[in-house]
């Protein structure tokens, strides 16, 4: 195979221009390997040459991610690359965003193999993990040598057209690049072909990639249930009568908590439902069917639950994008931790 042409993207810091003081700098191109491109180029010497290093200030790109990545794309295309690599960006937020955005764009528009590497919590990971390959790193650039090696190995496989497996096995985030669908073949035929391949135990590529959820260690309660402080959370949209916070019934980006102080059960006359996704007549009739305060209080009395948090949390989980759901979850989690809650009942309609 001919040696392939590699373009590498890095930020101003790794480009040797400085730190935050130069984060506003625009796009610069060096027709040699720069920074991590040095070792990367050496490791990939058998595969190709880094013909250009594209460098951009973190602020410049992050403040106008679409516009600047379009500019970057035009420049990258000029070098006729066969392979594109960005970063690694570890846990650097703006840099990670840029790495993810440009890698996704190169992959989708130039249709060449592309890869970057980021930490799981990097905002760029969540945004772009289902549009391109983002290898997993830890959050610290001290691991640079190891990560550059991993990127080189992966990039070489991409360049050689090797089959790449699922993210869990191959150590990349999410689902990777979106599958390329040939729409000139009718959907019914594509579906049957996939099914036949599956039956024959031949390889096939699904067109509907389920989001890969990262594994989180399952937390456990460190004390008897009879001593825990329990909180109740619902996405069923139960709000006090009159909906004082104007909670929206669909596509909600907010959550609220409402007091349970002095309540042994939830009276129908005190509540309403702001949720467009289910017939809420039964909950309006008896709100305890969604937020089970009557039964929970009894269990507290019987000593089966330590205490019940004196407010419940609510949102409307309808048409909520995963990213917003996560934000809502994070917000509620923060407040519950602060209140010393030990465990949560989440009631979903």
């Amino acid at each position: 195979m001919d040696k392939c042409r590699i373009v590498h993207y890095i930020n101003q810091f790794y480009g040797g221009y400085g730190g935050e003081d130069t984060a506003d700098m625009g796009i610069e191109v060096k027709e040699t390997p720069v920074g991590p491109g040095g070792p990367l180029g050496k490791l990939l010497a058998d595969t190709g040459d880094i013909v250009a290093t594209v460098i951009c200030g973190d602020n410049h790109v992050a403040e106008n991610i679409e516009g600047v990545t379009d500019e970057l794309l035009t420049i990258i295309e000029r070098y006729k690359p066969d392979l594109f690599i960005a970063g690694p960006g570890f846990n650097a937020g703006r840099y990670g965003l840029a790495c993810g955005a440009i890698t996704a764009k190169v992959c989708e528009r130039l249709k060449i193999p592309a890869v970057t590497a980021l930490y799981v919590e990097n905002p760029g990971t969540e945004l772009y993990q289902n549009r391109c390959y983002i290898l997993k790193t830890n959050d610290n650039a001290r691991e640079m040598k190891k990560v550059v090696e991993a990127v080189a190995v992966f990039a070489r496989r991409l360049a050689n057209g090797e089959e790449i497996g699922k993210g869990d096995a191959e150590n990349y985030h999410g689902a990777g690049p979106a599958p390329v669908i040939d729409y000139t073949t009718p959907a019914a035929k594509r579906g049957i072909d996939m099914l036949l391949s599956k039956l024959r135990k031949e390889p096939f590529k699904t067109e509907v990639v389920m989001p890969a959820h990262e594994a989180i260690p399952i937390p456990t309660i460190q004390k008897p249930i009879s001593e825990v402080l329990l909180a109740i959370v619902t996405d069923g949209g139960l709000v006090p009568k009159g909906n004082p916070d104007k909670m929206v019934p669909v596509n909600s980006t907010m959550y609220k908590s409402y007091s349970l102080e002095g309540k042994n059960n939830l009276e129908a006359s005190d509540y309403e439902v702001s949720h467009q996704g289910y017939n809420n007549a039964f909950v309006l009739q008896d709100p305890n069917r969604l937020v089970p305060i009557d039964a929970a209080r009894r269990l507290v009395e019987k000593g089966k639950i330590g205490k019940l948090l004196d407010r419940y949390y609510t949102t409307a989980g309808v048409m909520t994008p995963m990213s917003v759901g996560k934000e809502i979850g994070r917000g509620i989690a923060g407040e519950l931790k602060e209140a010393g809650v030990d465990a949560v009942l989440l009631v979903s309609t």
Partner: protein
Amino acid sequence: MTKELERAGLPVAHITNLTKIAEGIGSKRILRGNSVVHVLGNPSLTRDMEVDYRETMLIKALELLADKPDDETSSVIYE
């Protein structure tokens, strides 16, 4: 939401009728509710019986919370 709560170290018992979705989004302790429209209710019962029923459901949820699922990769679902 479950994942973010659990990421913060808070065990969650997810009570819902849509157990498959709950499993899909990564809930690990799942209790099937009575119905989408009355997750913790049963309108065919008298009010007192319904509260008893709800209490039984919560006890099941508490059991889920007290246990640690053996397998980190799959969910425990009480149907």
